[in-house]
Structures are given as structure tokens and as C-alpha cells.
């Protein structure tokens, strides 16, 4: 295990597998297959359940993917040297974005099952809602346009972080991977010039990406969560949503980096980097809880029907248990555990806490979406929901595996930040 100095280019490039390992492909393919089976069976037997859990997973995984790309931009903006060598691992989540776009378009076919305001757009107090906003065509048109914009930005960002390393990576690849990396390296002008050019472009792109992320995910929260409770008013909710997605990316990064380390021997990160990642997750757990409380308190105190309609449903059985569970998984338990330095510094411990946070955030999306749509009693959480979620996980995993098997997971050239070693003390 190399712990003292940076990895050489050769060592980094040797870890590009050029193919998804057979076992991983079988597992992920099976998951996607199970998801498809669940989706088809669900459409015929319980369409509302199918579409609502489809929406839950779409929101969870799309947020994770966009925030994964944002990690590199955030490190660049904040000059977070410690995260420089970690951003490629998080950026891989962005490989899911094309699939996410397609999934959004497919969601159109389930609109009748998920948007309660269709045909009766009034709020809890009976006031009509603006028709210019509350119409299905408009929702999907603006959604398609804005998501395209955000996802293209994410891809451009990914492109420029990867481009300086492409010729070196291409030399070790074959087939479509070779074609893709050759295309990415077209017109290559030498390592130094390319790294400098990428750095300049990324410097300009990072704030634009961060702003777009906040605005686009706010729109996603408004249209795909808030509108499910027509007229529900909480100005903070969109920000709470995108901070949750950001936290999921941080937790996802900890999980993926640990998996690489444990199963593929990719021990890229130094103890102080794990410590910093743990501290960042700890800070955002607290910040997420702060936003949750900032939203809850004025609604509880004001006690106005147009606001309490959302909270009340989730505070009473049968949803109460799920609300308590997600709050415990995202904040209470991680907060207590991450107080220990050891939990932050030992990757398997950190990954376990991060996994719990991911579970909590999935539950949070579930509790945000389903109670607003579900018109029958009880909590619709059964085989269909399980299969659909596994299917999304499999699809996300395949996209990530394609990325991880094609590109170097440690930057060869400092396209994000100058002056920090790839590994070791900084």
C-alpha cells in the first residue's frame, strides 16, 4: 500500500480496467432486469405505486448525479486542495445524467398518476393556482429544457476535467472506449497547454455550474415535489432539496471511494483527506438538519392550513415512523457517530455512516413524494417499490461502472486546482 508519496502516471493508468468486471456486470444487469420486471408488472397491477416510486428514484438518483459533478466545481471555487484528487470519483455519478434525462421524458407517460392538480388546480384554501405554471405540457417542456441545460453544463465540465488526460488513457483502451477517448482528445496540443486551457475554462465554468445547479434543482423540487401538494407554500423547500442532493453526493463519494479501496485496491486517498471528507459530511448533516428545522418551525408556529397541509400528513401515522426514520438516518445517528475522529478517518466506518445517510435521503424523498400522491391507506412500500429501486440502482451502477472503467480516477494533470499533491499531506 502506497502511503507516502503521489502515484505515478503509470500507476494511475494501470488501474483503468477498460471493461466492467464480469461479476459487477452480472450483478448490475440483474438489478436493471429486476427493475424492468417490477416496472412492467407494476404498470399493469398498480400504476400509481409504480409511477410514484419511479419519481422518488428519479429525484434521488438525478440529484446525486448532478451534485457529484458539482463536487469538482465546489472544490475549485473554494480552493479545496484536499478534494482535488477526490473529484473524479464523485464526478462519475454524472455518467447517470443522460439516463436521467431519458427517465424524465418517460415520466411524462405517468403524469396522470402523479400530479393531483391536473383538472383541479386550486390550493388548500380553494384559491386557483396560476394556469401558466400548472399545466402538464408546460411542466415537461420547461423541465426538458432546463434539465438539458444543466446536464450539458455538467458534461462540458466533466469533459474539460478529463481532456488533459485523454491521450494517455486512450492508449490503454480499445473499442468504443478508444473511440470516445480519441474524440475527447481531438486537436490535443500537449499536456501543459491542455491542462492550462482546461483550468481557465473550468475556472469560468465552475460558478456557472454551481448557480445552474441551485436554480435547476430548485425547479425540480417545485415541479416534482411541491406541486404534488397544490398550493403548498414553503420558500425554503427548493434549497432544502438541493442541499439534500449535495449531501447525498458527499455520502456517495465516501461509499464509492471506500468500495474502490476495499475491492479494487485503489488506495488513492490519504488519511487527512478521509478526515476532511468526514468533516464535510458532518457539517452538511448539521446544515441539512438546520434547513429542515428552519422550515418546520415557522410552519408549526404559524399553523396556517396552506402550510401545515404538507407537514401534518407526514407527522401522523402511518407516515410518522418514516419521517422519524429519515431524520434519524440523515442527522441524528450520523451526527453522534461523526463526532468521533476515528469514524471520519477509517474508510469503512465513514462509508457505513455515509450509507446510512444515503438510505435516509432516499427515505426522505419517499416521504416527500408518496404521501402527496397516494390516495389509499397504509404505506405503499412492497415488492414493486423494492424492484423499481433496485432497477434504478443497477442503472446508476452501470453508468458509473462505464465511467470508472474508461477514465483515470485520479487526475494525471492538475486541471482542477494547481499546487496540491495527488496524495499525501497537503
Amino acid at each position: 500500500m502506497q502511503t507516502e508519496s503521489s502515484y505515478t502516471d503509470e500507476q494511475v493508468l494501470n488501474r483503468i480496467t477498460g471493461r466492467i468486471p464480469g461479476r459487477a456486470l452480472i450483478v448490475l444487469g440483474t438489478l436493471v432486469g429486476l427493475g424492468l420486471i417490477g416496472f412492467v408488472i407494476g404498470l399493469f397491477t398498480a400504476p400509481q405505486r409504480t409511477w410514484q416510486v419511479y419519481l422518488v428514484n428519479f429525484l434521488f438518483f438525478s440529484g446525486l448525479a448532478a451534485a457529484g459533478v458539482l463536487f469538482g466545481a465546489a472544490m475549485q471555487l473554494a480552493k479545496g486542495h484536499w478534494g482535488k484528487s477526490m473529484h473524479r470519483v464523485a464526478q462519475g455519478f454524472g455518467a447517470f445524467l443522460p439516463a436521467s434525462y431519458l427517465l424524465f421524458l418517460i415520466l411524462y407517460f405517468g403524469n396522470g398518476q402523479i400530479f393531483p392538480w391536473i383538472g383541479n388546480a386550486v390550493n388548500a384554501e380553494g384559491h386557483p393556482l396560476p394556469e401558466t405554471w400548472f399545466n402538464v405540457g408546460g411542466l415537461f417542456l420547461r423541465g426538458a429544457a432546463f434539465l438539458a441545460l444543466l446536464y450539458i453544463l455538467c458534461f462540458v465540465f466533466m469533459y474539460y476535467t478529463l481532456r488533459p488526460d485523454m491521450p494517455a488513457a486512450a492508449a490503454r483502451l480499445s473499442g468504443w472506449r478508444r473511440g470516445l477517448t480519441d474524440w475527447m482528445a481531438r486537436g490535443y496540443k500537449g499536456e501543459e497547454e491542455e491542462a492550462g486551457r482546461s483550468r481557465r475554462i473550468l475556472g469560468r465554468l465552475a460558478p456557472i455550474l454551481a448557480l445552474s445547479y441551485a436554480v435547476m434543482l430548485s425547479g425540480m423540487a417545485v415541479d416534482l415535489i411541491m406541486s404534488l401538494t397544490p398550493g403548498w407554500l414553503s420558500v425554503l423547500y427548493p434549497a432544502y432539496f438541493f442541499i439534500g442532493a449535495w449531501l447525498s453526493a458527499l455520502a456517495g463519494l465516501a461509499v464509492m471511494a471506500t468500495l474502490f479501496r476495499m475491492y479494487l485496491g485503489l488506495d488513492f486517498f490519504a488519511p487527512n483527506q478521509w478526515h476532511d471528507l468526514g468533516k464535510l459530511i458532518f457539517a452538511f448533516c448539521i446544515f441539512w438538519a438546520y434547513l429542515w428545522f428552519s422550515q418546520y418551525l415557522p410552519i408549526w408556529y404559524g399553523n396556517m392550513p396552506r402550510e401545515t397541509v404538507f407537514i401534518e400528513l407526514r407527522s401522523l401515522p402511518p407516515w410518522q415512523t418514516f419521517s422519524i426514520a429519515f431524520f434519524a438516518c440523515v442527522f441524528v445517528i450520523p451526527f453522534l457517530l461523526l463526532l468521533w475522529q476515528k469514524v471520519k478517518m477509517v474508510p469503512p466506518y465513514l462509508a457505513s455512516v455515509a450509507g446510512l445517510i444515503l438510505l435516509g435521503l432516499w427515505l426522505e424523498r419517499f416521504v416527500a413524494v408518496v404521501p402527496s400522491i397516494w390516495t389509499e391507506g397504509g404505506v405503499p412500500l412492497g415488492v414493486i417499490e423494492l424492484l423499481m429501486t433496485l432497477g434504478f440502482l443497477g442503472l446508476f451502477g452501470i453508468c458509473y461502472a462505464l465511467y470508472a472503467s474508461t477514465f483515470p480516477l485520479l487526475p494525471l494533470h492538475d486541471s482542477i486546482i494547481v499546487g496540491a499533491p495527488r496524495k499525501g499531506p497537503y
Partner: protein
Amino acid sequence: MASVAGPARTPFAKVSRDIIGALWDSDLRYRMMMLILLTVIGWAGVAWIYQIKYGMGTAGITHPVMWGVYITNFVFWVGIAHSGTLISAILYLLRSGWRTTINRAAEAMTIFAVMTAGLFPLIHLGRVWYFYFLAPYPNQRLLWPNFRSPLIWDFFAISTYFTISLLFWYSGLIPDLATIRDKLKGAPGLWGRFKEKLYSYLSLGWGGTDTQWRNYRRAYLYMAAIATPLVLSVHSVVSWDFAMAITPGWHSTIFAPYFVAGAIFSGIAMVITLSVPFRWALGLEDYITEYHYDNMGKLLLLTSLIVGYAYIAEYFMAWYSGDPAEWESFRWRAVGDYMGPFVIMTTCNVVIPLLCFARRIRRNIAAMFVISIFVNIGMWYERFVIIVTSLAHEYSPGAWGLYKPSWVELSITAGSFAWFLFWFMLFAKTLPAISITEVKESIAEGVWSPGDKKEEA
């Protein structure tokens, strides 16, 4: 200590000389300035006495706007108090080296801003001698405060913030006070001996031993960790003074983070506004350079974008929710009788700070000074707009009304600025305005040294 690296470019002695050299010597400009400030404070005192004698009718507040300029000032000054802890505690935890030369002044600003803010609830009370009703002490008249009132939460939040900020500031000062004490050893004259005694007393017997440094470092780190949540909590609680009411324009879930971002925004702006004349007057140009303004400009831009996001989100949600009262409140805020303050607020807080996207502007000290003044004005107006327009235009059209501040309120407002500046100027001449210890540490660690503008992109 042998293990500490020697000075890289600037000798440690020069740092002590430069920073301590700026103390005590008060020239004519300084005295004139102090005289002007004292005159304004005196005038504000007269206005307050007039208000106490003739009653709250002398202030412009009346039904339906019962919170006016006094509460605007209160929120404004609490906001100003935010940058100190942000720069000292949060940036310390984030290992942001650039905070070194501005943290001391920002912390001092925090203390003085809270001292200023704390006056306004008292002034607003009218019968100020009953201020102790706020304090939760048991007594025979059973005057227990209402713990469900956000105003009481505020009392606790701000007093905690003040206590921690003061302790944090003072802890950071101890090694520097000892340096001054050592410099003053054997100072001639009665005044010299008095100063020596005073700094000796304040430095708490600091000798610079290993144990003392270790304890000092640990205490400073823990205090930074304790102070960090306070940055969020204090202005969140201030925002709940409004958000807990069901008044349209006030009752909003975004208020807590939005007020916190606004407070940091205005606080950073005030640090910039004060540091520009301050570095010039004390001859500390080498210590607060373009490098620091560049970074402060980035923070200013970030918080401006958050504030802008909140403005837009509030309007969008008011329209989107289909609630007529909410929408009317926001519509009137933009195009009603208070359109002027609204335009000032949005222009100064959202449009002008966009200039900070340009690195060239962030590194231009004069430009940053001008932008920061606009932000100060804009943030004062933001509080005015939120407080006054919401109260003036609530649910019932029969209860709508307008508010105009009286001369008493304006005088006291001017007095609050003078009061704040008075303390700040006193601080600049009696305590090291830049942390001697941290500058020396920066030099030793090669992070930054005086005069370094970090020109490279």
C-alpha cells in the same frame, strides 16, 4: 522555539513594530473625527431623552407600522455583527489563511455592533427602565417572560453570541497584549507606567511557554467550534422575530438561512468599508492587501447571490402558491408607496455586487470600497423594506397605512453609526488591530507575508 522556522521575508520584529506602532499616537485628524462622533452621539442622546420625556409619539411609529427604524437598526446591527465570527471561527476551521490580518478588526466590529444593536430594543421599549422585564429571573410579581415569544429567544441568542464573541476576541488578544506589555517595560512617565500596568493586567500573566501555547491553541479551536453554530443561530432567531408572525411578507420558511446570508453579506461589506480608511490611517497597507479584498469580494458575491436567490424565490412562491394576500403584499412592496426603498435594496444588494465576478474589480481596493458602501445602504434598506412594507400592507385593507421616520428616529439612527464608529476608533488606537501572533505564524508557515498581494490567478 527552535523548531519554528525563521522569518521568510519580513522580520518578526518589524511586524510587532508596525502593528504596535499604530497604537496610542492620536493626531489632529483622529481627534477631530472623535469630536465629530461624540457630537453626533450627544445629539442622539438628546433625541432619546426627548423621546423619553414626551413619549413614543415623538417617533414616527404608529398603527399599523409599530416596528419602524428602531427595529430596522436593530436587525441591521446584529447583521453587521456576523462577519466577525464568520471570519474568526468558520474561516479558522476552514483553514483559510487570508483571514489573518482582518479577523481582529472584524471581531472587534462584532462586539461593537452587538453593543449598538442591543440599544435599540431598549430605545424601542419607550419606558427603558423596565428593560429587566426581559430577563428571566424569578420575582414576587411573577413577571416571567413568555418563552414562546421569539423576542425572548432573541434575548438569549444575542446575549450568548455577545458572550462567546467577547471571550473569543479576548482569548485571541492575550499573546498580543503580552507582546505590548513586554514592549512597554520600563516606559517613562505616569502614563507609560499606567499603560504597562494595564497591559500587564490584561495579558493574564502570559509568558509564551509551551504549555500556555498548547492550551491557547486548544482553547481557540474549541471556541471556534462553539462559535460556529452561533453564526447560524443568532440571525436565524432574529429572523424568527418576523417569520413566526403570520404577516404576509414576514411569514416565510426561508427567513432563517436568508437572514444569516444577509447578515454575513452586510458584515463583510462593513469590514471592507472600515478596513479601507483604517489601513490607510494606521499605515497598515502592507498587511491588508489586494489579496484580502479579492477574497472578501468572493464572499460578498457568494452571499449576494444567496440573498438574490431568496428575493426571487419569495416572489416566485407568492405567485405560485395562488395566495392573494401573499401576492398582494409582495406586489405592493415592489410597486407601492415604498418602491424607492425596494429599488435601492435590489440594486445595491443584487445588481451592484455582480461586479465582483470580475477579478480586476475584486482586487481594486477603491472599487471594493464603493461597492461595500452600496451594500451597506442596500442591506439597511432591506431590513426597512421587510419590516415596514409588510406591516403597512397586511390582510385587511382597512388597516393599511404608511410610515415615515421622525427626526427623533433619524437622529438616533445617525447616533448609532457614530456610537459604533466611536468604539471602533477607540479600539484601533488601544489594541492591536491586526493579530501580531497570527501574522507571524503566517510568515513562519510560508502562507502569506506582509506586502504579498498574491498576484497570480
